[in-house]
């Protein structure tokens, strides 16, 4: 990790602890924000959080490894979580899964080399009446077909990275 990057992480964690309070009960909110911003909770981050909260880093590690949405390994900018529970399964999640793997060139549990997409299974995401369903970060997509997979991925690519289409309407509105 670059020193500047480490410095940024350190400062961010300091700010988060200040916002949520230096208590044990703030641990998960702090970790959730670190995960969202950095796509992972690195060893360095765990040590830093532990120092701020006055607990052993192993305590932080045990929490990070328990929850499906927190993790040590880097997750892409867009984490795609396809529901695999029975209702989505019966609605045809397998075809969607194959299409996602084909279009991204990775299998479930992997991240694309450009660091943009991670593919994960999810257990029931509460969209059983509109399956197959998937989450892209915090956004939900329902009744997904293998055709729709391409549109969803394009939507992600257009919102971030070299193919991003810059939306300057906000700036125009401000000007």
């Amino acid at each position, binding site marked *: 990790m670059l020193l500047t990057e480490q410095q940024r992480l350190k400062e961010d964690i300091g700010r988060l602890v200040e916002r949520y309070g230096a*208590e*044990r*009960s*703030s*641990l*998960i*909110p702090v*970790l*959730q924000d670190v995960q969202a911003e950095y796509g992972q909770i690195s060893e360095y981050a765990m040590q830093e959080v532990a120092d701020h909260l006055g607990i052993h880093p192993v305590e932080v590690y*045990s*929490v990070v490894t*328990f*929850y*499906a*949405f*927190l993790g040590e390994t880097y997750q892409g900018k867009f984490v795609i979580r396809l529901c*695999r*529970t*029975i*209702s989505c*399964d*019966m609605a045809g999640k397998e075809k969607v899964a194959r299409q996602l793997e084909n279009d991204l060139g990775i299998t479930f549990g992997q991240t694309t080399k450009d660091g943009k997409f991670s593919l994960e299974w*999810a*257990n*029931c*995401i*509460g*969209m*059983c*009446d*509109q*399956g197959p369903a998937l*989450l892209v970060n*915090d*956004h*939900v997509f329902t009744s997904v077909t293998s055709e729709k997979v391409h549109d969803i991925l394009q939507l992600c690519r257009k919102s971030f990275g070299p193919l991003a289409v810059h939306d300057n309407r906000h700036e125009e509105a401000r000007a």
Partner: protein
Amino acid sequence: MSANRKGLVTFSTIDPNAALAAAVAKTRAEIIGEVTASKLKGRGGAGFPTGVKWNLAAAAKGDAKYVICNADEGEPGTFKDRVILAEVPDLVFAGMTIGGIAIGAVKGIIYLRGEYTYLREQLESALAKRRAAGLLGPQVMDKAVAFDIEIRMGSGAYVCGEETALIESLEGQRGEPRNRPPFPVDTGFMGQPTIVNNVETFACVAAIFAKGAAWFASIGTEKSTGPKLFSVSGDCARPGVYEFPLGIMVSELLREVGGENAKAVQIGGASGHCVPSSEFTRTLSYEDVSTGGSVMVFGPQRDMLAVAKNFMEFFVEESCGQCTPCREGNAKLLEGIEMLEEGRCSAAYLDELTKLGEVMQLASKCGLGQSSPNAFLSIVSHFQDELMGRTHGLVR
């Protein structure tokens, strides 16, 4: 009440502010008396009488007390809490506020599952509006009672729907269930008396104060009062959230949702029971087939072993690993299902697996392990012929 319709029929007609106004005019004992009189039972699935829970928490001594709304709706096939939070969140907030007044708590926490993060923004803005309107804050409705609500997010662990695991998670720990007793009403969040209720339970509380305990108790059956939301999915023409009085027959529900030709229905999600077509005259109620609201319909073409396998894979992944019956038992049952799939399971071994399932029901620490064999056991008992003697996996 026009119950036989899709959607939040009752709940959308309730005025949350009227409910809160009716409650703040009462004493704490009167509020709890009203909830008890309604015979409301917990809507998350366990069916514990809400009035009893609140009474215990009100009587418990503590420096601070807490009201927790369990919005960690992770049970497969359940999505009614999502719909309540998206469409009538104020009912839930009003119900929580009433709970706070009843037990003497000034702080409420909504534990929202991480998968529902997209709901957070609108919930926060609904809370902000309530603060601005004086419905939350240091003086609720200008009375000398304070109450406010905070939203905390889950991080993708099904077991955190178990109330003590949820509290552990709120305290910044791994979501591992605690031994009970002590129960949260006595030793809950931060060791203080805490009530943990389901989203729909709080919405019911608001309904009770808006329309009266007698009205609520007149709906449903003697032991299962009130309307109930059902999340219907699977092989039916019209999946979605339905509201019916408790005590509805499975066959009636299937007619409403267009799933008459089902061969089985899974009631109560992965941890619930599989009801075969021969038993569709059974009723959805606490005294018969109990459910937190999940109804999954399986059409004639479905392979029940594949269903059992999907559920068991779910539990192998979601078991917190703390106690042995659940951690090892679920893995062993999944292995057995794979043997059945390959046609290599003897009747004697299937018996062993059934016994293992019963041991797990008895010996697991929390509701997850106690209920995870349910689906497997009920599928084995009703569809044994379909499960045994498979040939496709045999190498001859």
